[in-house]
């Protein structure tokens, strides 16, 4: 089958998969209690499906010259299914299994720029750090199992207490999660992996992978560890503040646009954690809502970068000088995506950040809100720096006109529509809120 037909077919199938996701709303358990489904879980899976569809559309340019398309999709979808199992898990065992299914194949995927040195390094860093984080996570889980005798979330919630050993186990699990979410101080792998991996994989890592882990993270926190809220609030508060500050400070000094987005995504995770500290239905809704928006904004940005990188191989921020002159449309798409990441209305990012702050503020922690607000300004600075490069700086060697194919155009249309609609029309948030039953 010729490459282009194959890619078209795959994209159509992914679209069908995404649409079909809306019609499957069976609720209940399967395989004992190994697989659990609720409306919320369906929604989360649909969000991930959408993200994969968009990534697939965007990476067409890169894939059409790649020799291993079949394998790419097999691995990508295996990883996606791993996330589905992870989200649907009701116990630590299935969660771990899903997590590994979603990360181990991804490491191979990170190495898919076979000719590039950095790609291999990225893959290695990714697999070692993810194995290490799984190790910590597992040690925590094993202690929890030893102390409580159960692996299911319900069982843990029923018997969890503030015993020091249990807190230690919890901290280890938290550290494992922090690794996967690339929260400080476990973020060191992120930038290298994001820079080295092919853009499509980076987009997948930063949106789908991270999104899935965060979905699981807050549901585990809110169910299994609900009763030790007082203990985890402070940990989470600390992590979120550190993550925001570190992500922002490092993003300030990046030249490579993929590294830049890596650190900005670290800062975004810090923001998401603020919402999670709310420990309420509002917190959960705000988190899911934000991830949906983050999907649109980040994939909008990665889409442009992916196109430019595939066509010209340029990945530095300084290469984007004068981008608006040669590619006005793409420049506006990138700018809007960055504005949304910075949380500026009328883009949806504004609403997302606002709701995260509101749910975080429900714990009456003024310091947290002030720090978050200050961080928003810092983050605005570096997003505006990129916008400035594109719109205001002149450049003799500006990136030449890049053609957007139909499929990439479709992906951009989805992202931009999402950016503008999800926030302004309140129904989206309300729907998410209505299906959360904590």
């Amino acid at each position, binding site marked *: 089958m010729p490459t282009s037909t194959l890619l078209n077919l795959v994209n159509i199938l992914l679209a069908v998969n995404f649409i079909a996701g809306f019609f499957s709303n069976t609720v209940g358990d399967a395989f004992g209690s190994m697989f659990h489904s609720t409306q919320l879980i369906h929604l989360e899976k649909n969000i991930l499906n959408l993200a994969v569809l968009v990534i697939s559309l965007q990476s067409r340019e890169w894939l059409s010259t790649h020799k291993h398309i079949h*394998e790419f999709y097999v691995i990508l979808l295996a990883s996606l*299914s791993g996330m589905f199992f992870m989200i649907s898990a009701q116990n630590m*065992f299935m969660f771990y299994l899903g997590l590994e299914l979603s990360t*181990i194949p991804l490491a*191979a995927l990170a190495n898919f720029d*076979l000719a590039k040195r950095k790609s291999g390094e990225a893959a290695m860093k990714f697999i070692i750090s993810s194995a290490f984080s799984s190790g910590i996570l597992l040690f925590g889980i094993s202690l929890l199992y030893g102390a409580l005798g159960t692996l299911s979330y319900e069982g843990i919630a029923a018997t969890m207490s503030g015993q020091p050993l249990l807190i230690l186990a919890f901290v280890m699990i938290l550290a494992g999660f922090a690794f996967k979410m690339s929260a400080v101080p476990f973020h060191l792998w992120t930038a290298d992996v994001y820079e080295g991996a092919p853009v499509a994989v980076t987009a997948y890592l930063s949106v789908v992978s991270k999104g899935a882990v965060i979905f699981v993270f807050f549901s585990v926190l809110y169910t299994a560890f609900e009763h030790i809220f007082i203990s985890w609030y402070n940990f989470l508060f600390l992590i979120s503040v550190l993550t925001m500050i570190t992500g922002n400070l490092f993003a300030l000094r990046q030249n490579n646009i993929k590294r830049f987005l890596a650190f900005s995504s670290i800062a975004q995770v810090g923001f998401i954690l603020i919402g999670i500290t709310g420990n309420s239905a509002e917190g959960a809704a705000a988190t899911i809502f934000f991830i949906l928006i983050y999907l649109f904004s980040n994939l909008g940005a990665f889409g442009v970068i992916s196109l430019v990188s595939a066509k010209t191989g340029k990945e530095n921020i300084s290469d984007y000088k004068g981008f608006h002159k040669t590619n006005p449309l793409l420049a506006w798409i990138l700018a809007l995506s960055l504005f949304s990441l910075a949380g500026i209305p009328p883009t949806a990012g504004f609403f997302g950040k606002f709701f995260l702050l509101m749910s975080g503020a429900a714990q009456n922690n003024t310091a947290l809100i002030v720090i978050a607000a200050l961080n928003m300004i810092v983050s605005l600075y570096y997003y505006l720096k990129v916008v400035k490069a594109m719109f205001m700086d002149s450049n003799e060697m500006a990136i030449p006109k890049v053609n957007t194919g139909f499929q990439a155009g479709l992906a951009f249309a989805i992202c931009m529509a999402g950016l503008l609609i999800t926030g302004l029309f309140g129904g989206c948030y309300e729907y998410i809120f209505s299906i959360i039953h904590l």
Partner: protein
Amino acid sequence: MSAYEIIFYLLAAFILGNGILAMTTTKIFRAAIFLLFTLIGVAGLYFWMQIEFVAAVQIIVYVGGIVVLIIFSIFLTQQSGLEMPKATLQRKIFSGIAAICGAGLTGLLISQYGFTNNPDAVLDDSVQNIGTQMLDYEDVGFALPFEVISILLLAAMIGAIVIAMKSKVEES
């Protein structure tokens, strides 16, 4: 002290000693061999606990599979006799302190928690029981995980093959 206890402490010393050596020796091939001994020691520990199935799996997969794979890759990628680059002393000290503190804290908390053995614990770990549960899709069954891990192995295998395959461009 009964023979049973003595065997445990010997096993523990064997595991930890080889483990430390595997992590500190400067020659990579030796490290692999020490790792091999550590893993055999762990298998011995399972035998000591009378969990024969896991012990067998440990030997087959770890000792027979992973370590062989590691040794194989050492042969493929570097001269095994050479010394590896050393970490700086500062880093060693820092890591050592971190590890010792972590181990101390965890050990302290474990001993404080006071785990007590369940006196009438009888674990039915016959291969038959394991097999039945592995393919059971009812409440205590592991049929779904079994399927999931088969996808995992398949995907990992495909990924590994694509990466490790020699592409023609590189030959030229």
